[in-house]
């Protein structure tokens, strides 16, 4: 069976005809398989949803109890049959509960990796290489200029700044689901044990991480704090809030932003970031290329991001590669929900 008869891109997302489902559909479908909880991948309104328990919980937190007609939780390493195909979930290392979906039909195995990273992350299960015939990779950071480095070093930069400017507040823009909790965990790992403050928009999801046994230390809400008392503190906030009038409650804030985009100066400057922290939940160029090699796949489908460079790289190595024209998947750092006084609860 040809790979494109097993999985093919359609308007609603990646469609598996023989299995009768879509992966991360952007429109409501009868049966959806969801890789992870970010809102561009996990949408409400599907009939049946198959995902990890964590992903289902996150969808419930965001959309309410009736986000789908029925749900089914699946564990990493667990395999189930859907129609003519077998579906198996493997950790993607992206955020808590994130999974790669291996779809096997007869002799052909396709892995849809969703979003992934191969760097260590104390808040989620580590990425696992899944040997396959066709590997579907993201390309968010699919240019050789993106090399993310050691996230712990970036957190050291943040702590050095806090030490140097004790009278200022440090405001760290970080995506609410995943990045924020990883930054907090990294701060704790670096020995920072003061309370860490949160923008109201990340309260629920952060508490969910804690409820899953991820140690994040003492967390407090910014709301209700006196300006002077925020001197010398670290606050995590959705990226859009860090340039919002919300920031006026902080004493002379240092604006940091934790994102793989911070590798490129123009991107950081454009956002008015004073302390760029190169911390990414996506694989960097070296990670993407090494993972493609490691899967042993002979055919690579490249989606959302810088497809051109990665397709070129694959082709130069003698791999069959093509961009998958899927629409509707954003870059969570850029497409963060508006936050501010109105959203903060």
């Amino acid at each position: 069976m040809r790979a494109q008869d097993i999985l093919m891109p359609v308007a609603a997302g990646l469609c598996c005809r023989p299995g009768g489902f879509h992966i991360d559909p952007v429109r409501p479908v009868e049966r959806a398989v969801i890789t992870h909880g970010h809102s561009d991948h996990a949408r409400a309104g599907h009939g049946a949803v198959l995902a990890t328990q964590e992903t289902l919980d996150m969808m419930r937190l965001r959309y309410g109890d009736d986000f789908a007609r029925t749900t089914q939780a699946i564990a990493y390493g667990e395999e189930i049959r859907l129609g003519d195909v077998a579906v198996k979930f493997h950790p993607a290392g992206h955020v808590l509960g994130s999974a790669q979906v291996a779809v096997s039909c007869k002799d052909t195995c396709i892995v849809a990796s969703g979003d992934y990273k191969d760097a260590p992350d104390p808040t989620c299960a580590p990425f696992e290489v899944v040997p396959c015939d066709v590997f579907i990779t993201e390309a968010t950071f699919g240019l050789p200029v993106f090399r993310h480095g050691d996230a712990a070093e970036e957190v050291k930069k943040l702590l050095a700044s806090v030490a140097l400017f004790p009278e200022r507040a440090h405001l760290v823009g970080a995506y609410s689901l995943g990045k924020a909790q990883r930054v907090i965990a990294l701060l704790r790992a670096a020995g920072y044990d003061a309370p860490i403050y949160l923008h109201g928009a990340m309260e629920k999801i952060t508490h969910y991480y804690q409820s899953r046994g991820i140690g994040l230390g003492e967390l407090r809400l910014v709301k209700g704090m006196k300006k002077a008392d925020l001197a010398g503190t670290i606050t995590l906030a959705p990226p859009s809030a860090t340039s919002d009038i919300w920031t006026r409650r902080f004493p002379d804030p240092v604006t940091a932003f934790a994102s793989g985009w911070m590798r490129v100066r123009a991107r950081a400057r454009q956002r008015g970031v004073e302390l760029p922290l190169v911390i990414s939940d996506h694989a960097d160029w070296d990670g993407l290329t090494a993972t493609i090699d490691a899967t042993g796949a002979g055919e690579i489908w490249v989606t959302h991001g810088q497809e051109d460079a990665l397709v070129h790289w694959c082709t130069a190595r003698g791999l069959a590669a093509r961009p998958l024209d899927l629409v509707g998947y954003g870059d969570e750092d850029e497409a963060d929900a508006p936050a501010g006084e109105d959203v903060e609860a």
Partner: protein
Amino acid sequence: MNRFAELLDRLAYEPGRNNKLRLITNYFRATEDPDRGYALAALTGALSFKHAKPGLIRDLIAERTDPVLFALSYDYVGDLSETVALMWPKASINHEGSLRGSPSPQPSPTRGEEVAHKLQPSHRSATGKPANPSTADAELLSVPSPLVGKGQGEGYHEHTAREQIRPDHNNPPPPTLTDVVTTLRTLGKTELPKQLARWLDELDETGRWALLKLVTGAMRIGISARLAKTAAAALGDKDAHDLELMWPGLAPPYLDLFAWLEGRADKPVNLDPAPFRPVMLAHAIEDTDFADLDATDYVAEWKWDGIRVQAVSGRDEHGNLQVRLYSRSGEDITKSFPDLLPSLHLPGAIDGELLVLRDGRVQTFNVLQQRLNRKVVSPKLLKDYPIHLRAYDLLGEGDGDLRELPFTERRERLEAFVGKLNDPRIDLSPIVAFDHWEDLRAARADPATASAGEDAEAVEGVMLKRRDAPYLPGRPKGQWWKWKRDPHIIDAVLMYAQRGHGKRSSYYSDYTFGVWTGDDDGEQLVPVGKAYFGFTDEELLQIDRFVRRNTTEKFGPVRHVVHEPEQGLVLEVAFEGLARSPRHKSGVAMRFPRINRLRWDKPPREADRLETLERMLKADSAKQAVAVESH
């Protein structure tokens, strides 16, 4: 080098002056000699070596990367040094020629939180035999873990770090700033590419970026020499003026300076025969100040719209005359004005204004501007823009320091000194006679008829100097006053607003404004300038609110603000002058524009028109003295 690179990196993003100071001082405190000295030299522009051309950098990266990937990356990043710094392949992973030119994707799971301790043991054993002992010794002690394996590659978990350690574990540590600077000084042109490649192999991303900026001479990180010196002075709680005074006698890596700043040695003596002296500055006078001032205590001069300069001549130990020109911040600008140097043929220190004179007439600042910030001073430039020094104070003569003398005595000495120089390129700034403040007010309003004559165009107001004032550094209260002419004023319409930086990053504080222009297609607004100050904190809040409520479109940090004939915000904009500018759509550029007042009362249709600016421009460039304001 990596530490200096981190400093540059942080400075590049930090908008606040005081925060920059703190970052630099902190670097000086944490960094050893002589690295910090070379850093100070780099920040003050005191390093000299032949810069590498961008072509060389391009060649280096072309040898190492796939051209398509480089083109895509360069296109994305937009800056050559940065692109090369980011995509430079890790050294020594790149063996075996397996890559067909593309950056290495080889797995080396040495990234991530657990990397450091895994790598350290094997690295330490590696450093026992540095490849380049001459540069490595000092660095080994201070940088135990050069960024081997940091960042690159990836880490899936079947492998262990140990299997992946590079085969050639003889990697030298990254170069120190001292290594780089001292090597570049003596390096031949043909050796440069190889040496540069070696350094790029050894440094991390930020280090490579800083190195490339340094060797191409394109640092541009928004740090003035003055700021760097102030930061150094702060290391020892010293006044930046003291440092400025001794600066011309100091040389990189400034070991004596840092020893003094840290209290380990006496103050370095400035042996410079032509040193800079900290300048005396004036306060802007307000109408209310006159009540307490007695007109007879003061002498008035025209305030010339040129460049404040200190012209110093002195004899060195061989008896040769050394001549230097300093900007008001103490920056040595001698090289830019070779045409003035022969005129300064007697030992002395003149405080004055640099102007361009043609046929004995002072040209406007716009003309003078052609002479500023030039790397190469061509004969044509010297001929077309002849430089002139208008002297208004004498700080020293021969070996004598005159700064303690009262102004009137210094003035007498100055008149005699300029007389002795007897050079057409140097003249005296004339005294403006007055008995009462009202006389001076009239002279200020119409300098042309009040003795400035045809030079009136280059007069931007009057200076008041107390007759008994000694020459004091800084801005002492009540000694010197500046009384500027009233600025030009127009009413313009707010068109776009952009968020500010630092403290203002949540405010729309940078405003683009326009005036009306019309053709057959109807009336439209054309942008004529940008302003980001002049308003009060309260007004900033009001404008910010207006911008947020009246945005029609958003482009990243920029907002289109409604600007229709009946709907929009009129800003009263004050500015100092106008110049023709082909770079602006309107064809004019404003000097020193600022928001004077918010005209909530005025509908946009009543704002000024481009023709008003055109008229001002004509009046400005006409020989007539007073630019007529349109209202």
